[in-house]
């Protein structure tokens, strides 16, 4: 691996200072399951690695039914799915956290790292989008907050600039009668990269018969994870029905902009988006009625 310096700051201000000092040639290290592979493969070059795992704000995982979830950017997947309350409140995110890599990877890989790495195929991003997460970002100029769907800008690129850090993701309190689901298609059962993935979330009326609002987001079918507002629009106010779900799936298939590569063709991916949108909506509705 190329030569770099390694620093593990204990405070957020220290971490931000260490990052901004070096700009593009510094890189944060969370679980390392993307960055170390990229460094070893020569796909990135850095002068400084800032290990953010000892910064308290990035390790925070606090949840209440009233205020929702604050998920520190460096919290590894296993900590999420080990917490029964959180698993129940945000089932779509949990689907992804227990799907990323195998057990060894989940012991280190963070949801924040999955987001910052900004892969089109990242499994945690569509569920974060549909669960309405926002990103808390810290830099030399202070902190700002943006919606997750605005975070990724191109494959491997995000909105962070000049040494900014993702501090945490905030996810609103789960409303009763809501549910989420994430599914991906891979040729094997575990340990593979999504050919296509879909996250869905629904809010049902108190009698569970109609859809108040819904959100759908896609993985691996565009240069960035894709929020499909139109799918939600086609569901809002409709009765829960096969037709409504089919309309939303059509909208998702129209929004998808897949490419053909070694994992799949344009046609296959668009077809998968339809299938997975239907299945995740049905899954989200089933969870919402539980």
């Amino acid at each position, binding site marked *: *691996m*190329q*030569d*770099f*310096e*390694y620093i*593990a700051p204990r405070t957020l201000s220290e971490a931000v200072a260490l990052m901004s000092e070096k700009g593009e040639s510094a890189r944060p*290290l969370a*679980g*390392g*399951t993307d960055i*170390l*592979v990229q*460094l*070893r*493969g020569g796909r990135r070059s850095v002068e400084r*690695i800032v*290990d953010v*795992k000892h910064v308290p704000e990035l390790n925070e995982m606090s949840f209440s039914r009233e205020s929702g979830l604050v998920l520190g950017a460096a919290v590894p997947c*296993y900590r999420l799915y080990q917490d029964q309350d959180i698993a129940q409140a945000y089932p779509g995110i949990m689907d992804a956290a227990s799907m990323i*890599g*195998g*057990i*060894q*990877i989940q*012991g*280190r890989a963070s949801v924040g790292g999955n987001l910052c790495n900004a892969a089109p195929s990242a499994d945690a991003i569509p569920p974060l989008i549909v669960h309405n997460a926002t990103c808390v970002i810290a830099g030399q100029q202070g902190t700002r907050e943006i919606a997750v769907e605005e975070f990724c800008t191109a494959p491997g690129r995000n909105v962070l600039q000049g040494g900014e850090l993702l501090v945490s993701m905030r996810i609103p309190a789960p409303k009763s009668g809501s549910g989420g689901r994430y599914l991906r298609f891979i040729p094997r*059962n*575990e*340990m593979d990269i999504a050919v296509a993935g879909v996250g869905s979330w629904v809010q049902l009326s108190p009698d569970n018969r109609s859809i108040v609002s819904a959100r759908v987001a896609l993985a691996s079918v565009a240069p960035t994870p894709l929020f499909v507002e139109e799918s939600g629009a086609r569901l809002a106010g409709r009765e829960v029905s096969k037709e409504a779900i089919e309309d939303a799936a059509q909208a998702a298939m129209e929004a998808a902009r897949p490419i053909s590569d070694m994992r799949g063709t344009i046609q296959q991916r668009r077809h998968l988006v339809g299938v997975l949108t239907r299945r995740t909506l049905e899954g989200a509705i089933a969870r919402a009625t539980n």
Partner: protein
Amino acid sequence: MAKKAHIETTINGEQVEYLCEPRQSLLEVLRDVLEMTGTKEGCNDGNCGACTVVMDGRIVNSCLVLGAEAEGANLETIEGVATPDSLHPLQQSFLQNAALQCGICTPGFILASKALLEMEPDPGEERVRHWLAGNLCRCTGYDKIVKAVLEAADVLEVKG
């Protein structure tokens, strides 16, 4: 060259100190600096699990951990699994079931399975297969490995 880091850590219950370059992985430190070659390198990119070690109670791929990150950590490697008098029941069971051929994957499978059985003494076959999805074996075809783990679980349960 970046300055070497001085690291203090615990490996298999013993205090260990070492110097490492920031770019060296924990796997490289174990094998090349500490000459603990029980931990194996397969893919060196997180896919095969041959380099599995336990870090603060969780199994991780040591090829995707920096040696410098082990400061203050509690590590367990394959060298700590057997006692001077006897093999661990999992090791015994792997031998009895011929669950290895070349053996490169074996330390990783043993540590991963051990972590599972310590948490869930009686996992079913599906759970074992799912848990071991991050460990690859190019020789055995897995059936014998899964059988060995399930048998070891029975032995461990009887021993209590």
